[in-house]
């Protein structure tokens, strides 16, 4: 008897399909059986594409039978975050304003999934327009952390992380603007990678903050992460900010030796009171594991990513800089949702100004409105220099901090999140506290470099804890090799949440 699907990695599923041990149809049918059983408990999906997926599986079975050349992701079910456009399938960004919106085109990454013979199984829940760190800002449903259903899965790619953690999909795509892949991956105990800015085309990713957004993979293993990254990374002329660089063989790069590498420990991230004690302990263990693998650690400084603790309150330059830049860009990016051409339009009659304000007032949630207002203010004449331009300068300082770090170290070792997953509703009324869940992840976006979140233990309450590695521009290979080496020597990623009877 073959192993149950949920125990297989994506790579193993593809190999089983290519060796004709399993048909694509049987893979997809079993995947939907798991998905349906757990969806009620987890709430990871906004749209389930069973019919399309089965038709696609049959087509793949025929293609294989015809002896055609098969793609890298042949027969692998993949979940896609709902801010990535899928032609003919609703793409809502978990917002009322795009309720029922069906894009007329596929995002570049979706085209890539199809070209590599993956099977898209559904669209995952998220914070509205990717604004949030808990997925509680979805207009449509609550996603629960598979490890503790009273807790949030992280965000904004909470649906994708929860789906992978609950084995509802072996692979998922998310997007990361300030930690939106790495933080939910960390809180759900899976691997999540934010590629270097410009590595993956953003064409078809509904923009939140254009200069920070990046699509990336979530999976249970570094190997599967590498596989999905390799599939989505090829160049795309439709995104002017996308690189022309060749795509490295990320899967092959997994085996690169890590012995002799130097990891930097930013003193600013490991301060008294800045980290939950159990998170700190898990990171310390991970560090010892890496040392045993021949990695040297060295203290470094990222002064402009500094975190201050005063009266138990955290604060950070980087967080302030990030929230000015991302809200400024968002205020402009989200201006197009006006009810004129698509999406929600208010039923109330009135002149054009009334139509705009009612449509947007009804369509956007609280957090989105808050950020549009913040960003509009930051760009206003008289404030532009003090906010937007100054934040841009801080951003360059953060970038040069990393440049200096690369003179001494190969990768930066850091936490992903100050605490394990918090309780549903715990921070819902405190936007500042929520913003600080990104405190360790946003520097990576501001610097445009790549970062990965890797499970590295569990809290005493059984909640996943993760480590973060950050690398130079275009150095995803080393990130993946380091994550892979760690996973060979640990089995955190092999544990599965108990969802039976949930």
């Amino acid at each position, binding site marked *: 008897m073959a192993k149950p699907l949920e125990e297989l990695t994506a790579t193993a599923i593809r190999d089983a399909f290519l060796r004709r041990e399993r048909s694509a149809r049987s893979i997809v049918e079993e995947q939907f059986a798991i998905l349906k059983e757990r969806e009620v408990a987890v709430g990871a999906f906004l749209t389930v594409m069973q019919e399309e997926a089965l038709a696609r599986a049959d087509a793949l079975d025929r293609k294989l039978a015809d002896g055609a050349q098969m793609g890298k992701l042949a027969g692998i079910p993949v979940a896609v975050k709902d801010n990535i456009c899928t032609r003919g399938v609703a*793409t809502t960004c978990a917002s009322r304003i795009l309720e029922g919106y069906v894009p007329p085109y596929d995002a570049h990454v979706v085209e890539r999934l199809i070209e590599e013979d993956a099977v898209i199984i559904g669209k995952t829940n998220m914070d509205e327009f990717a604004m949030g760190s808990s997925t509680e800002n979805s207009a449509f449903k609550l996603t629960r952390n598979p490890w503790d259903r009273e807790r949030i899965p992280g965000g904004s790619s909470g649906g994708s992380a929860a789906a992978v953690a609950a084995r509802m999909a072996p692979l998922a795509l998310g997007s990361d603007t300030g930690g939106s892949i790495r933080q939910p991956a960390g809180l759900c105990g899976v691997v999540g990678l934010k590629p270097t800015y410009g590595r993956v085309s953003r064409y078809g990713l509904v923009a939140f903050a254009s200069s920070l957004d990046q699509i990336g993979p979530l999976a249970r293993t570094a190997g599967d992460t590498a596989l999905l990254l390799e599939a989505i990374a090829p160049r795309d*002329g439709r995104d002017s900010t996308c690189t022309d660089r060749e795509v490295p063989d990320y899967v092959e790069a997994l085996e690169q030796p890590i012995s002799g590498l130097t990891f930097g420990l930013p003193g600013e991230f490991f301060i008294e009171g800045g980290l939950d004690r159990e998170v700190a302990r898990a990171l310390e263990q991970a560090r010892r594991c890496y040392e045993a693998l021949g990695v040297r650690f060295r203290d470094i400084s990222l002064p402009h990513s500094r975190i201050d603790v005063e009266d138990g309150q955290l604060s950070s330059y980087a967080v302030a800089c990030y929230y000015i830049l991302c809200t400024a860009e968002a205020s402009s990016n989200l201006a197009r949702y006006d009810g004129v*051409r698509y999406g929600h339009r208010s039923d109330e009659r009135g002149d*054009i100004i009334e139509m705009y304000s009612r449509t947007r007032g009804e369509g956007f949630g609280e957090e989105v409105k808050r950020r549009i207002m913040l960003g509009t203010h930051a760009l206003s004449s008289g404030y532009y220099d003090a906010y937007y331009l100054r934040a841009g300068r801080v951003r360059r300082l953060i970038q040069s901090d990393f440049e200096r770090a690369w003179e001494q170290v190969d990768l930066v070792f850091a936490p992903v999140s100050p605490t394990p997953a918090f309780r549903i509703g715990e921070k819902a009324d405190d936007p500042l506290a929520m913003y600080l869940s990104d405190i360790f992840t946003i520097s990576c976006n501001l610097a445009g470099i790549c970062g990965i979140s890797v499970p590295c233990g569990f809290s005493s309450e059984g909640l996943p804890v993760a480590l973060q590695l950050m690398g130079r521009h275009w150095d995803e290979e080393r990130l993946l090799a380091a994550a892979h080496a760690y996973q060979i020597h640990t089995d955190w990623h092999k544990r599965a949440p108990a969802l039976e009877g949930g």
Partner: protein
Amino acid sequence: MRYEAVIGLETHAELLTESKLWCRCGTRFGEPPNTQTCPVCLGMPGVLPVLNKRAFELALKAALALHCVINRETFFDRKNYYYPDLPKNYQVSQNYCNLGRDGYLEMSADGGIRRVGIWNVHLEEDAGKNIHVESPGADYSLVDLNRAGVPLLEVVSAPDMHSVEEAEAFMHTLRRLLLYCEVSDCKMQEGSLRFEASVSLRRPGEEKLGSRVEIKNLNSIKAVTRCLAYEIERQSRLLREGGAVEMETRLWDEAGGRSERMRSKERAQDYRYFPEPDLVPFVVDEGWLERVQAEVPELSLGRRRRFVRDHGLSEYDARVLTEERAVADYFEACLAAHNEPKSVANWIMNEVLAILNERKVSIAEFEVPPQRFAELIEAADKGKVTAAAAREILGKMIETGKNAATLIEETGAETIGQEEDLAPIVEQVLAEARKAVQDYLGGKKKAIGALLGQVMRLTGGKADPKLAREILLNRLEEMARQP
């Protein structure tokens, strides 16, 4: 008290590209609404712009023709405002780093050459069109986004103009420059060329400017001149009556011939410009700049001066011939085959331009290529055919596409230039036109015209007029000597 006007103009010209600025949609005018659109120019969620390099090049060419300093690394900005014809509710334009700056436009004014400063030249995207449904009971508008994303050149002048006439000269000269450079078709009836004006008044000799009034919605040169005259008069009256001009933005109503203040909501615009994060900065390297510079043609004013200097044309002729680049090109192509500038100029101005004018077409549609036209002029200049015959042959060349030599041969249009051929005809005319002969012999020397006309009529215009005149005069002299 007379006030001095200080006028600045912003000119928007649609660039002559096949496709739009950020996507590959076509730019043809007059297509059915919303048929030249795609997710990118409709502002669908998730789309991104990719710069049309040709549009950038055309804008660069215009900036170079306007003697601008070129910013070698330039970027785009978003201008944020809400309007239903603007799909993203921001316009991608340039604000912080224009493609070109600090240039000038040379124009002829008051019998001399004037330079008007150009503050900047930049590239931006056009918006679509709102169609306000006028049918009774209709409470909605329609939007056509065919034009959304069409590349638009903006030329911002310094407030260097002081009269309606100067502003008019500026607009005509700039339009000619854009046509010469082939960067825009400048068809005002299709909205390819539009303006915004700023006007303030000051007492003569004073440095300090009065409050500036901006006027939008000027869709033709004529609209600008009308609007400027109206605005200068409006402000002068206000000042004369002891009032003050308020700084404001007004909207020109062409049908009503008046401007109106824009509503406060529309006036209090804060465009919240910031660099467009979906695009990367563009670097204009030396090679590219040189290639585009080489594409900048000799402009009308320079050509006009050269035509006077090198071809000995009159100012007037040179101006007529350089008005349109294609006409000037045609003229020079004719000269290449037959180097008689004055004669070629006359033929083009008197014949070709008249024909084109009557048919309301451009010289591009004129059937006779310059080489062939030059052959005809040469035949006339050498007396092979008379001017009258040449005009008829030109008509036949247009009709048949045959060359001049063939048609002269076929129609026997060659000039009757031998004395023995013309003498009998002259005799016939002298015998028949007794009245004119009497008049001439009686001292009315003008009567020679009537006699000559008669000779031409009898020869079907083919008589060599010089020879005919000579024979006539000789014979009349003889007749006078022997009564």
